[in-house]
């Protein structure tokens, strides 16, 4: 029997979308690949417009991203913060908590790292690093708790509050770097002191930039996957995300679940800031993140909010950025092509997700 209430096609003037039954695994895996192919085809138009050969440009991007040990390590280094922010977004979006503020939570993680890591706590590494990580996670989580409370109590749209907090927190960092956290030896630059050796994450290979933050990121992705798949909390988060009213009816404490989601998501984003300061940069600056918080949204969407998929999509996005940098030094195509490629891949991916769920009928 047909139930009209849940099989409504979406109707437009040009086309209509009819729901499809659940897609098979093959289709689910095939569509991201198709999306990437479509991305390459679309961006090759721009490359042609820039007067270069698409094939050689894409070859150079691929070589720059993974063509040597150096390139590969650089891509993984760049992927590290993206895994954290991607996980933060994936967790929040799964519960339909629209956290657009991973950038702010990342910076808060960075602040906590330099506050605790520049000598305030004279502890050995094995104690100090976990303490800083926990503190950073709590701070990031609390930053997202505010918008979550406003959403559940007063119905304030968290897209707006979390987005605006990005600018507020960045200005706050600027204030700190011109004030209490300013490095007295920094020759007037707005930067903090370097963290002490005990607060630094060691490098995975001596003399290379890739650090243990990457390992922590992979472990985090696995932990988040376990939470989503196996635990009561993950079950509650998915239920709340799919149908808050239904979740409330069956007795799931919807508001409390959203609070926990906010703490987890904000905490994961803050780990990106911790890992960048403690593993790579050493200090806090205003350019700690070139938009990792925002790119995290792309990463999470490309991964279809799957925590393990986030690892792959973060490496993919990082690879395009790193590869495009390398490519622009050889070919005369600006590295901005990386932004276009990432943005296009998001759009093609959204279309691909739509096509796995609906069948298009043209009129």
């Amino acid at each position, binding site marked *: *029997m*047909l*139930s*009209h*209430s*849940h*099989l409504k*096609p979406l*109707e437009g003037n040009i086309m*209509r979308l*009819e729901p*499809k*039954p*659940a897609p098979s695994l093959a289709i689910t895996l095939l569509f991201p690949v198709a999306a990437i192919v479509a991305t390459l085809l679309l961006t090759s138009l721009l490359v042609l417009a820039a007067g270069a050969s698409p094939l050689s440009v894409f070859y150079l991007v691929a070589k720059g991203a993974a063509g040597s040990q150096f390139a590969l390590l650089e891509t993984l280094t760049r992927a590290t913060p993206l895994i954290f922010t991607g996980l933060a977004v994936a967790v929040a979006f799964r519960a339909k908590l629209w956290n657009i503020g991973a950038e702010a939570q990342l910076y808060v993680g960075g602040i906590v790292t330099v506050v605790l890591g520049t000598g305030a706590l004279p502890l050995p590494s094995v104690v100090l690093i976990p303490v800083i990580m926990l503190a950073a996670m709590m701070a990031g989580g609390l930053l997202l708790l505010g918008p979550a409370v406003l959403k559940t109590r007063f119905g304030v749209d968290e897209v707006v509050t979390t987005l605006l907090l990005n600018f507020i927190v960045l200005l706050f960092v600027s204030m700190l770097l011109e004030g209490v956290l300013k490095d007295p030896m920094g020759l007037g630059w707005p930067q903090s002191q370097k963290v002490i050796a005990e607060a630094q994450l060691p490098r995975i290979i001596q003399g290379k930039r890739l650090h243990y933050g990457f390992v922590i990121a992979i472990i985090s992705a696995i932990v988040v996957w376990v939470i989503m798949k*196996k*635990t*009561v*909390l993950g*079950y509650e988060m*998915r*239920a709340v995300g*799919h*149908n808050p*009213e*239904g*979740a*409330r*009816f*069956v*007795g*799931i*404490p919807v508001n409390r679940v959203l609070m926990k989601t906010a703490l987890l998501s904000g905490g994961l984003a803050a780990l990106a800031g911790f890992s960048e300061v403690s593993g790579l940069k050493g200090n806090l600056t205003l350019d700690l993140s070139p938009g990792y918080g925002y790119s995290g949204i792309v990463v999470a969407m490309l991964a279809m909010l799957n925590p393990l998929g986030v690892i792959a999509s973060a490496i993919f996005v990082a690879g395009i950025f790193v590869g495009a940098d390398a490519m622009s030094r050889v070919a005369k195509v600006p590295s901005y092509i990386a932004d276009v490629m990432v943005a296009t891949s998001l759009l093609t991916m959204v279309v691909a997700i739509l096509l796995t769920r609906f069948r298009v009928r043209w*009129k």
Partner: protein
Amino acid sequence: MTSTPVLRLSGITKRFGPLVANDAISFELKRGEVIALLGENGAGKTTLMNILFGHYVADEGTVAAFAKPLPPGDPHAALDAGIGMVHQHFTLADNMTVLENIALGTQSLWRPRLDRAAARSRIGQLSADFGLAVDPAATVSSLSVGERQRVEILKALYREARILILDEPTAVLTPAETEALFRTLKLLVAKGLSIIFISHKLHEVMAVSDRVLVLRAGRLAGERETKSTDRKELAALMVGQEVKPAEVTPVQLGAPLLLLDRVSTARHNGAGLDEVSLTLSAGEITGLAGVSGNGQAALAALIAGTRRPTGGSISVAGRAIGDWSPQAALGHGIARIPEDRHAVGTIGDMSVMENVIAERYGSPRFSRMGFLDWKAARAFAEEIIADYDVKCPSPEARIRLLSGGNMQKLILGRALDPEPAVILASQPTRGLDVGAVAYVHRMLLAARERGAAVLLISEDLEEILALSDRIVVMSKGRLSVPSARGERSIRELGELMAGHGGEQAA
């Protein structure tokens, strides 16, 4: 009655994936004729009308109005051809006046000002001609459901509809309002309009139509002149077999299990509760009748735990309730079958297994140390699927893909498996086919025999009369004095539903 066909449907077929919603349906509508389109929910009535009206495009077949073919998929073409539709759920702008709603969209965009005087006099004329009394200056939000329906009909007539389609028009009306509607329909056909009346209520179909088309599982199961058929034959055509009513055996009345004492609530999908007192006792089904929107939703939400009372007290098994929530209701052994199984009763994108444990996932049976035991969940789902005869591909299937009847059986299984003391069944058979309805009725009666207290909220008076040991009627947020089985006639219940007489002594 003349014999000019004003509407002709030829070989209409519509598929949704593997499901054939309409299978080669053909019929003609004559001038001045009322056709009743009769069928169970899901038989394909609404799909057919949506094709006729251009909301869906048929896979095969054609529609012609006044001997001209209608282009498929274009609601404007249907409107222009003089087809008007009154939907089950009204499409009025609540914050605008009756006049504005009726005239809305009828005027050219190039004329920014509405010619109110002309519109008012035309509406007045139509109202008088067809017995559709309604004040053009009233805001729609201040109107009763019956009045809103009249506005919808006026809207169609204002647009010079010659063919009027009414989709389950009586579902929201009191018996008296229904009679008024039928009088209006008689006046309309006398003026040469043609009407398609969609319903699944046999007595209405017999009362109002000239001809009956019976749809079953997407096919035209039969076509009868109304005067040469009877309810029994139509029911058999509709269902495909004879239906046996559920058997009710006498049960010893037990202790009161749920007690509401002068409980009031805020408004919720209609009226709120106004000092309602109600006792549900073991071994008894209490039927709650009433016109939709009179406080049934508020009462259901209150007992389900999703709404808190603003006054009065609730006690379960003799103990007063302090903090009230869905968890508290479940904890006190109240099983809930919600009115809307798609939006509230299930989480559509989650699996059957994830849905059946939803009310108990925190119990030691399904979780340890914050980790869910998926093996136990799957075993429980398989148990429910077997015990409650649910047809579903696997416990991992998304519950959204199940039919309404199977979804309801899962909800029943989830609610009844722990042998609850109190059962709240809110519109438990709405939209189900006859087999599933009978199943739900059997389960509720079995729970009663086991000693559960059941509250059956339904807009279907026949269902209430068939199952209830005791009937209360809700009107404007207040309850009538209960009556025992057979004590009040349908007419008396109808008057209580309309808000006349016998209110509860506080």
